[in-house]
């Protein structure tokens, strides 16, 4: 899988592209943390719109990034969540800990 980073007026948009399974999850967390550390954004948003597949391995990636953001005191949210990925997220109760935003299509 791939990750693309984009600065959106202070917010770091992290686009997850492809399939996020246990294999892909291995290096992804560190890669995102590294970008957060060097870019110092005001907030982070993980975008699932281009993710074709995600299993429970994605949950650990999300919770890990939430921890990173909490440590440096910035908010984090999720966007572009749909289909079975949405079901996996809701099943885990992750929405209690991290905000899920609808797509803001005008800004895309």
């Amino acid at each position, binding site marked *: 899988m791939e990750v693309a980073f984009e600065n959106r007026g202070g917010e770091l948009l992290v686009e997850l592209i492809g*399939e996020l*399974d*246990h*294999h892909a*999850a*291995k290096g992804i967390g560190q890669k995102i943390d590294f970008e957060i550390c060097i870019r110092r954004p005001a907030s982070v948003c993980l975008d699932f719109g281009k993710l074709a*597949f*995600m*299993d*429970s*391995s994605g*949950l*650990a990636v999300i*919770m*890990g990034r939430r921890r990173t953001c909490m440590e440096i005191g910035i908010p984090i949210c999720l966007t572009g969540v749909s*289909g*079975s*990925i949405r*079901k*996996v997220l809701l*099943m*885990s109760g992750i929405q209690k800990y991290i905000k899920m935003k609808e797509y803001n299509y005008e800004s895309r």
Partner: protein
Amino acid sequence: MKADNVIRMQVESRSCNEGFARVAVAAVAAQLDPTLEEVSEIKTAVSEAVTNSIVHGYGDTIGMIYITVKRIGRKIQVVIRDKGKGIEDIERAREPLYTTSTGGERSGMGFTIMETFSDRLRVSSRPGRGTRVTLEKTIYGKDDPR
């Protein structure tokens, strides 16, 4: 009941093989003209089972994972079997958010996802001998009027 189609594969317990198992089940499901949701649900359930064999069954060692995908009418049956260390307490393992993993890498949601995304889930295991997970899901397909 006699299967209409059977695929048997065995893969080494390397994480790069997780995708193969998903492709195999998707290929069999595709014969039933499934909805996008049905395909991703069964793929997710299979991915969880195979990941469990890799992470928990074999851990730091490499062993074989045996995957059988059967189509019986509109039903897909997937058996994922390993000869790894097995599960001591299956009931506990099936509880949401329970995990024996300590690195924060696993969420403990694997069995909950398998259960939710299939119609039937059977788990049998013998400590020291291995684990067998059987998933069944009926594919109603795009023409289903429900």
